[in-house]
């Protein structure tokens, strides 16, 4: 017994230092209405829809809308419906607009009941005959957030996946937050946080460093620590050996 506990103590990984980062995620789900008592007729109508747009439902997060559904308050009914859907490559993960009985039956087959959510445009046109790939929008969009007006006190500019470029000054009390680099073609008086998701190669560039606080990948320096040496001069800041370096441009 003692050896077992000694082994388990030894194999305790050093995971404790890394914090589990739970992030939110936006997805557009497809809401499939279930009308009446879903039986053969319903599945036949689905087949029609799939013939017109074969790839429409593949890999889409699917929600069953039970607003008009009859029955389905027993687990058996749900299981049958799910079988029918799964053989057609459709895998729902939740229901909405369900009665209490329907919710219970849904839970029994592993579907959660959703409350909120709002109408959203579907990522792809359903009338298209070509088999479309994953409906989630994958258009090549620039990840850079570009701001061409001065950033006013109290405003917050956030780039979730890229850089932030400000053509103008950043006022005291404003915040610039970027997954990547922060570029300010003006005076940086507020806060700039670069590499907020952990990118230690991110940098901050500005034409005059008068910031209240700058941070790269969580490591920060306040105005007091930066001092006045860099005001009125174009500088860049980056991480080196776990310390923030601020160096003026020549």
């Amino acid at each position, binding site marked *: 017994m003692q050896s077992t506990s000694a082994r388990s103590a030894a194999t305790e990984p050093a995971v404790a230092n890394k914090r589990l980062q739970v992030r939110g995620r936006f997805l557009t789900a497809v809401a499939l209405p279930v009308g009446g008592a879903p039986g053969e007729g319903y599945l036949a109508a689905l087949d029609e829809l799939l013939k017109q747009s074969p790839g429409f439902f593949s890999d889409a997060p699917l929600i069953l809308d039970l607003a008009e559904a009859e029955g389905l308050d027993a687990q058996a009914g749900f299981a049958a419906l799910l079988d029918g859907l799964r053989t057609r490559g459709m895998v729902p993960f939740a229901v909405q607009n369900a009665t209490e009985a329907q919710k219970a039956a849904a839970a029994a087959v592993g579907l959660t009941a959703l409350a909120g959510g709002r109408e959203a445009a579907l990522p792809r046109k359903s009338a298209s005959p070509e088999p479309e790939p994953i409906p989630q929008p994958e258009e090549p969009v620039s990840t850079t957030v570009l701001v061409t*007006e*001065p950033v*006013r*006190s*109290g*405003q917050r500019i956030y780039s979730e996946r890229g850089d932030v470029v400000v053509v*103008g*000054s950043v*006022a*005291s*009390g404003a915040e610039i937050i970027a997954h990547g680099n922060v570029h300010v073609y003006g005076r940086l008086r507020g806060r700039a946080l670069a590499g907020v998701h952990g990118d230690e190669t991110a940098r901050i560039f500005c034409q005059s460093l008068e910031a209240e606080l700058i941070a790269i990948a969580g490591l920060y320096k306040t105005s007091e620590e930066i001092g006045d040496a860099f005001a009125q001069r174009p500088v860049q800041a980056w991480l080196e050996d776990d310390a923030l370096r601020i160096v003026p441009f020549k």
Partner: protein
Amino acid sequence: MAKITVVTSGKGGVGKTTSAAAIGAGLAMRGKKTVVIDFDVGLRNLDVIMGCERRVVFDFINVIQGEARLKQALITDRRLENLSILAASQTRDKDALTTEGVEKVLDELSEEFDHIICDSPAGIERGAHLAMYFADEAVVVTNPEVSSVRDSDRVIGLLSSKTRRAEKGEEPVKPHLLLTRYDEARVARGEMMKIEDVEEILSIPLLGIIPESPAVLKASNVGTPVVFDEKTPAAKAYTDAVARLLGEQLEMRVQPGERRGLFQRILGRTA
């Protein structure tokens, strides 16, 4: 259709009500039918500054809540028949203000008046928000002092995002910077921010520079808008500001004190 101008600042005590009264009176003196509305519910002082506090029967909130007609609440200034005041309630608070109620009153006023001046309370809460929400133009009153400048900056940001024009994607609210309580001697000593520094931080067109003046305190105690005291530099500065608001191009005057000889005044003119 009336032009709706909000006089706002963020920071308290910088001269919003004084300026709203002066600008309102200035516009009326130029022949424009003008009404000034006090949005500072519960802490009203526009009526005192304008000298009509003894004639308030019904107020803005009464009209919004349908307890009185607009005609019953509007007070016409005894000195200028073009100028009217709509006082705020002193017994209620800003929760009595509603967007629909304010919109209705402004629409009704638009039919009769050329200019509607909204005197905003300090802060960025409901009263200030509603005062700016329907505005076409804004006069951002700022003292040449760091906390006032920062608060004004915040308000300018709100003007471009939390107003009806911004929400509807229409032409944005036109902001103007009104620098008040300016004291050139203190600027020279380095105790006060320079005009250029304030302009650089706020980046909005300068409407006017109102010098620190004992005339202002006298005016509010007597209940007369500053512009009536025509010889004082503050009154002249407000008159110039009103002219610029109406689109005229005027050279900016910077006055250091109350008395300046003719010679000094010529030399002291700055562009």
